[in-house]
């Protein structure tokens, strides 16, 4: 294959990747959270619908009808209330048990269309379609779209092209153009140029807002303008990541399917509170509960962390008194033990607590994650096999009890008894639909 005379580090990878013609499909669920609600509430079809973030804070998903009313993504609920009442918009709290289950169904159904798949997010996946050209790629895309819709009720759009970046752009067209009918293919040069000319620079996958601004200032307005830039110019200003995007737009795959998700880099557990917290004990117990939850997540992923970070925040919408405190503490050795992680979080908490403030949210972050097998011994803390084995067994039992009997059946005392419930800081979910697919007592009702 021809290269544009590239002589840098990733050339070797590039050569291997491009030695065989690749075809990528990006499958994207349309307005996924709204679509999940509609599967079980068909009367919502054609009506404006929005889904709220955790705690009913702001709008995180909109139906096409709601987008047409120009409700912006991320609008706080209290600002949207007027327009919601005026247009009779249906409002839902986020129902993650439902969305997670529907996502698994979509991904399973997609798995029947290609042996090569990368689950990119809860509502997006890439498929490798090399070798399927004889079926007609656009028709194959339509077939995928119709099957997913029939099996799961979720509408999807599909973009197909020779690189992931182009597939993303094809998906953008598939979703918006009536003629595409949900499946769009970019495989020839002339279609590509036509399409790139219509795509704004900030809509290219991998171009963040800072680069979009820089490129705009340089007169680079469309994806086609960017595509035609000199490679050396791009490499100088945007480094290897920008060059990769450039080559991908030119049809040279630089990004392959990642069928195994990379090791998690950080684990974060945070919540905003339904009502501001001023009480030290309540905030401390919340942070302890987040730390315990994060420790559980680490164990599930076979990870330990070297540092625990705790952060607390007051209301961001009130910039005058805005406060964000953050502090870290490291346990003596990297750990995922609930007691050790919680203890480190409690020490860090003492450094962020400020009396007299109204805290709106808090959270913990686990930093320096490494797989359990890679813990390094330290001079004064030789891992004591017997003690370690006991600790491990305690945590296995701990997780087993919580997964069999229910979350929080057994917990560490610093996470509190029922203080938090009394203060009403538990997550608000005023408009949650039933957990139709994961809970026997909440199955959809059919009339007979």
């Amino acid at each position, binding site marked *: 294959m021809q290269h544009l005379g590239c002589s840098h580090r990733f050339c070797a990878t590039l050569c291997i990747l491009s030695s065989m013609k690749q075809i990528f499909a990006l499958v994207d669920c349309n307005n996924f959270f709204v679509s999940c609600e509609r599967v079980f509430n*068909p009367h919502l079809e054609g009506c404006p619908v929005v889904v709220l973030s955790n705690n009913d804070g702001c709008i995180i998903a909109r139906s096409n009808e709601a987008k047409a009313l120009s409700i912006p993504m991320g609008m706080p609920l209290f600002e949207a209330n007027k327009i919601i009442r005026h247009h009779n918009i249906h409002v839902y709290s986020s129902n993650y048990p439902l969305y997670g289950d529907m996502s*698994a169904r979509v*991904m399973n159904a997609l798995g029947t269309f290609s042996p090569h*798949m990368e689950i990119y997010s809860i509502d997006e996946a890439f498929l490798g379609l090399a070798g399927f050209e004889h079926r007609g790629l656009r028709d194959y895309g339509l077939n995928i779209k119709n099957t997913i819709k029939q099996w799961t009720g979720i509408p999807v759009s599909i973009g197909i092209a020779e690189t992931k970046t182009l597939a993303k752009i094809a998906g953008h067209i598939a979703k918006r153009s009536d003629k595409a009918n949900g499946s769009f293919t970019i495989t020839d040069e002339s279609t590509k140029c036509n399409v790139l000319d219509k795509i704004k620079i900030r809509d290219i996958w991998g171009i963040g807002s800072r680069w979009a601004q820089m490129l705009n200032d340089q007169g680079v307005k469309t994806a086609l303008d960017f595509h035609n830039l000199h490679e050396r110019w791009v490499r100088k200003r945007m480094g290897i990541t920008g060059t990769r995007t450039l080559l991908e737009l030119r049809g040279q795959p630089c990004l392959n399917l990642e069928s195994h998700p990379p090791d998690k880099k950080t684990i974060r557990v945070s919540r905003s509170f339904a009502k501001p917290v001023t009480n030290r004990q309540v905030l401390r117990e919340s942070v302890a509960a987040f730390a315990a939850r994060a420790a559980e997540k680490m164990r599930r992923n076979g990870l330990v962390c070297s540092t625990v970070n705790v952060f607390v925040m007051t209301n961001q919408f009130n910039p005058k008194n805005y406060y964000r405190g953050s502090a870290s503490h490291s346990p003596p050795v990297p750990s995922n033990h609930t007691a050790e992680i919680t203890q480190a979080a409690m020490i860090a908490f003492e450094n962020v607590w400020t009396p007299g403030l109204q805290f709106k949210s808090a959270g913990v972050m686990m930093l320096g994650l490494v797989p359990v097998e890679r813990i390094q011994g330290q001079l004064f803390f030789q891992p004591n096999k017997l003690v370690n084995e006991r600790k491990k067994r305690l945590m296995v039992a701990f997780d087993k009890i919580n997964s069999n009997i229910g979350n929080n059946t057994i917990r560490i005392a610093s996470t509190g008894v029922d203080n938090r419930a009394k203060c009403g800081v538990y997550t608000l979910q005023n408009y949650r639909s039933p957990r139709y697919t994961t809970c026997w007592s909440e199955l*959809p*009702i*059919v*009339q*007979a």
Partner: protein
Amino acid sequence: MFFFNKLDKQIRSPLYVSTVAAGFPSPADDYMEGALDLNEYLIAHPAATFMVRVEGISMTGAGILSGDVLIVDRSVESRSGHIVIAIINGELTVKRLVKGDNGWLLKAEHPDYPPTKIGLNSECSIWGVVTGSVRRFVS
């Protein structure tokens, strides 16, 4: 590859009839098979299968009572004679799909409920095909 967690079958190793140490082995040991699994019996396409609960008496003639759990496979193409979940006026409804002389009908299985004609009332489509039902007598 992605696995369907919730309906993943539990893998059970058969419990052998005889103990190991002494005596003769049970002649049944050579005939041990896997345990029966209701998921396997009732669900052919896990990704496309949903459970719904019945409310109402219009399908008693088909052996479907109020409170029953129905198993709905959306990957099955609906045919005349199938019991289906249909969307009528934005509501999920269970009826029997029948091709009559003058087009498709959604029929109840109870003398007090008249059939609904599909097409006259345009707000109607098929949500899925009912492939089975589950009823508990003692909980």
